[in-house]
């Protein structure tokens, strides 16, 4: 028994020692930022020794989970209104909110040469389905509807719109070929400065309200040094380079 007890004590000591240096941070990440945060997480863990645990999803869903006690410490939202709302409701660490990326919208098809560089394919009307993210819940979906309105196509595309619950699903409908066209986040189809598959029109930013994506430290992460470290890291030049390489503005 003595031996077992001392072994247990050693184990406990090991775990607590370990966590004194390397903390774990639980992050709720907007679906459009999935690929960049995975690249950033690898660097972040190597450079700081902290561990990043990410959950991906829709911003509205994260809001509901955070309000109901989800264990997230940092929230990387797809918009700026949800973090503002959480801030005004007292769920965040004061002064921690900042814009970590400005999203770019793209009209995309999985087919090569289908989308032209100016998006004229939208007006040609030669498609069955146009996929967008749910505009009520996803900022990229809202931006897509603003672009359609600006082009005067709202009525024309009405019967062709299919909605994904978040930007990942909007992408999935296009990538599986079920929708010929879709408005997705450039970050989903962009790698190392170019569109990696299919064809796309990168929508000029002035055609919709800016997709400002804000990050915030939540109350659960108040005393976690890893949460603070992650936010600082996101503001640093190394993360900025990665974020830009996925087609975001800063």
């Amino acid at each position, binding site marked *: 028994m003595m031996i077992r007890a001392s072994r247990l004590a050693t184990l406990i000591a090991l775990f607590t020692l370990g966590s004194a240096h390397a903390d774990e941070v639980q992050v709720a990440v907007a679906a459009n930022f999935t690929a960049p945060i995975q690249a950033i997480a690898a660097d972040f863990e190597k450079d700081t020794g902290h561990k990043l645990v990410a959950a991906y999803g829709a911003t509205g*869903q994260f809001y*509901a989970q955070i309000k109901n006690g989800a264990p997230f410490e940092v929230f990387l939202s797809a918009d700026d209104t949800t973090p503002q709302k959480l801030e005004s409701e007292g769920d965040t660490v004061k002064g921690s909110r900042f814009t970590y990326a400005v999203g770019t919208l793209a009209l995309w098809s999985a087919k090569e040469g289908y989308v032209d560089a100016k998006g004229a394919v939208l007006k040609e009307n030669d498609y069955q389905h146009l996929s967008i993210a749910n505009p*009520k819940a996803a900022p990229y979906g809202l931006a897509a509807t603003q672009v359609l309105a600006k082009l005067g196509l709202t009525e024309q595309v009405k019967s062709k719109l*299919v*909605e994904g*619950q978040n930007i990942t699903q909007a992408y999935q409908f296009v990538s*599986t*070929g079920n929708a010929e066209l879709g408005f997705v986040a450039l970050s989903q189809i962009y790698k190392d400065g170019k569109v990696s598959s299919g064809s796309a029109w990168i929508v000029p930013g002035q055609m919709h309200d800016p997709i400002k994506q804000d990050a915030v430290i939540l109350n659960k992460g108040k005393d976690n040094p890893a949460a603070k470290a992650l936010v600082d890291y996101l503001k640093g030049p190394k993360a900025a380079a990665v974020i830009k390489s996925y087609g975001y503005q800063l």
Partner: protein
Amino acid sequence: MPLSSADFSAIWLTLKLASLTTVILLVIGTPIALWLSHTRSWWRGPIGAIVALPLVLPPTVIGFYLLLTMGPHGYLGQFTQWLGLGTLTFSFAGLVIGSVIYSMPFVVQPLQNAFSAIGSRPLEVAATLRANPWDTFFTVILPLARPGFITASILGFAHTVGEFGVVLMIGGNIPDKTRVVSVQIYDHVEAMEYAQAHWLAAAMVVFSFLVLLALYSSRKTKAGWS
């Protein structure tokens, strides 16, 4: 009125989907259940297992494969395109197919149990009285298996009303075509419209309870304790 017209059209669509699915399942489920309850074939095991698969598979698995199969590159998608029908994703017809697969065990299994309970004796008697198979089905099997048909219809209908994952993956959230109640509730929650979400969600709870109450109350209690 706490429910909007969009909520009502989602309710109407859900009822339409569940009714149509139940009717189709009764038509194709009855011969499958009859066969499963009487065959001695080696295929009984594999077919029974396939019918029961939706009981254990996550709806995301069914939805994912349907999305690929019904899509323009999938077998079903290429077939429907060849027929000139286009693809079935994002359509009411696509949801009906998905629901038929998803709710299949909830209809076939109660029917199979009911048919097994009849046994072979009444069928043999019918045969000696020179009843042809159709006569036997309509005058012997159908009346005797009535409770099984009622259970199958209620469960098939209710399970389709409760469907979410499959619809989410192949539906595309189109009003009046694929936006059913469960998706509408999810939408309300995502958009932080909790009051509307509550009304619809509470309606679902009440509906489900009433359905199950009807189901369990209709069952005759065998020699009970009280």
